[in-house]
């Protein structure tokens, strides 16, 4: 049934987008929380931009960069990778739109970690990467997890950037949000409503699982 194909495709893309955004997102969050470096303010603004700019505008920018004549798209095309109007564009749009939520939440978590722990770990002979992996990350873990869940939830519902950069190709790039819009626009209210119910259920399960994990962590 088409509903399940769309639901599965959306969840898979959102999961992949989360997977893609977590490593750079967590690293950016840590750098913003702990290090002073030139260009810091620029990165800070840049990362949060997708929160404020209309998603459609973000999508248009992605289309320009990753399109066949875009700066990155041109290079990718040479090695045979097409991004725009494929599932890769869906994942890309989701990751870019989810990133600000992940970075902001994880950054707050890193800032809450008493830096004395990191200092002591360093004096005990741990190089920076080991301090990050064994002290900063485990202590900020609840916030990093919460940030990843927020990013995932944002990815699930992504619409504006997705429709511009990936379109609404049934069976190829059509996500829940885009499908709901397409059905509603063409008067197929029953199908639209079914997808709304599926969306709510998925989001409910994801958030419930995150809360459960956080509670178990605190116990």
């Amino acid at each position, binding site marked *: 049934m088409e509903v399940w194909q769309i639901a599965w495709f959306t969840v898979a893309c959102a999961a992949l987008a989360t997977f893609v955004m977590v490593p750079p997102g967590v690293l950016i969050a840590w750098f913003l929380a702990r290090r002073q470096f030139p260009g810091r303010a620029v990165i800070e603004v840049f990362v949060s931009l997708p929160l404020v700019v209309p998603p459609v505008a973000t999508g248009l920018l992605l289309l320009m960069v990753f399109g066949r004549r875009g700066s990155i798209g041109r290079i990718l095309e040479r090695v045979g990778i097409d991004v725009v109007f494929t599932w890769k564009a869906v994942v890309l749009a989701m990751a870019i739109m989810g990133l600000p939520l992940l970075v902001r939440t994880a950054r707050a978590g890193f800032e809450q970690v008493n830096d004395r*722990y990191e*200092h002591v770990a360093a*004096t*005990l002979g741990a190089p920076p990467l080991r301090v990050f992996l064994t002290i900063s990350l485990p202590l900020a873990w609840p916030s990093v997890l919460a940030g990843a869940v927020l990013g995932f939830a944002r990815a699930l519902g992504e619409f504006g950037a997705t429709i511009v950069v990936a379109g609404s190709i049934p069976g190829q790039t059509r996500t829940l949000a885009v499908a709901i819009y397409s059905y509603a626009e063409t008067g197929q209210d029953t199908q639209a409503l079914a997808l709304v119910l599926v969306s709510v259920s998925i989001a409910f399960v994801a958030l419930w699982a995150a809360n459960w994990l956080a509670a178990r962590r605190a116990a």
Partner: protein
Amino acid sequence: MGSQLAGGEARRVIVLDIVLVQGAFTLEMSTRLDAPITALFGPSGSGKTTTLDAIAGLRTPIRGTIAVNDRTLFSSDSQINLPPHQRHVGYMPQDVALFPHMNVRRNLLYGRHPGVSPDLDRVVGMLEIDRLVDRRVNDLSGGERQRVALGRALMSGPSLLLLDEPLAAVDVPLRRRILPYLQRVRDDLKIPILYVSHDREEVNELADAVVHLDSGRLV
């Protein structure tokens, strides 16, 4: 027996010749320390903790030299500034900062370096914390936390121990019980100790030499 711990004949001289600026505060000192236990004594805000931070590599002087046993940790002339994890300096901050997500054993072993670190059994025996190794850090009493933090610093095989008000957070009877452990570190392990205090009685009892600090200057 660890190599750094056996050397009874080794020279133990700490050269501290630094200028460090921190906002409106300037720390300026030039001294050589060669006593087994040296107390850094002075009112709060006199620069005691800043001095320890500079030796541990957590703050960078604007110029000067820091050397421990002929090993240069910092030298503005020769452009040497070893990162904290290469300084082999055990640091116990005032709040002891035991890693809350690890049990006592993992705290103790965090900084262990094969070939350099003392034997775990010897350290836990000396500090009488052998019964605590499988306990959670949050279940320890104040005096136990102090001893575990001391043990953790010793397990990294340091060539110098920095203790920031190690007895300030514990009450007087407990203080009486912890002092002998510090004396054992001095007498058995022969690791020089630089320790911060604002309690004259405690300094008289424990320290072999005293450095007086006031408003960032030696007096």
